């Protein structure tokens, strides 16, 4: 079963718009949520992360909004640029059991048209 779900599978926005990527999870013990960005031909790279004690994390044009009660989070990319076109993965990790593993979503493919 997919413990971390992402939607939409793909998203197209115009340059300058805000892209919203969604993520939800099943396990209430998850307490750390990184988002990774992957460009074609490259490995994923950490973009931004949030811990469950916070409801918002901002880094430049990238902001995570976190709702612990609903087990949902979203990545907002404001003023989207063509260079933001990539696949974005939401992941999760808890502190129960094997906390050396990340649980990965299937990714959202973002295209930003100029």
């Amino acid at each position, binding site marked *: 079963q997919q413990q971390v779900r992402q939607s939409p599978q793909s998203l197209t926005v115009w340059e300058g718009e805000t892209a919203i990527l969604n993520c939800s999870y099943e396990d209430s013990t998850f307490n750390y949520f990184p988002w990774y960005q992957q460009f074609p031909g*490259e*490995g994923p790279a*950490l973009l931004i992360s949030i811990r469950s004690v916070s409801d918002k994390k901002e880094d430049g044009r990238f902001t995570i909004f976190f709702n612990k009660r609903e087990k949902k989070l979203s990545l907002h990319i404001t003023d989207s640029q063509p260079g933001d076109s990539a696949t974005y993965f939401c992941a999760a990790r808890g502190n129960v059991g094997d906390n*050396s593993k*990340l649980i990965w979503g299937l990714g959202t493919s973002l295209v930003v048209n100029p």
Partner: protein
Amino acid sequence: EAAVTQSPRNKVTVTGGNVTLSCRQTNSHNYMYWYRQDTGHGLRLIHYSYGAGNLQIGDVPDGYKATRTTQEDFFLLLELASPSQTSLYFCASSDAEQYFGPGTRLTVL
């Protein structure tokens, strides 16, 4: 920033062939991971290790062996490659965050 390198970057083999994928990290991270990435499946964990000589089984281990020879080096072995193992393979190392290598594209004919 952690540096993770992988070799080869591309590999073509035949069914039943023997393949070794190599990964090296230079930041003395304890944890190293092998993933495969396939369209529609995201990143799937094959094996991982928390130090030299240690091996932990991941979520999709069948058909794969792995060995961590040193703190820096982690190898993925496919002893009887099958077409279903055609994939993009990533290695990662981790302290708190995971840092990924550039990937190896493996084709099994």
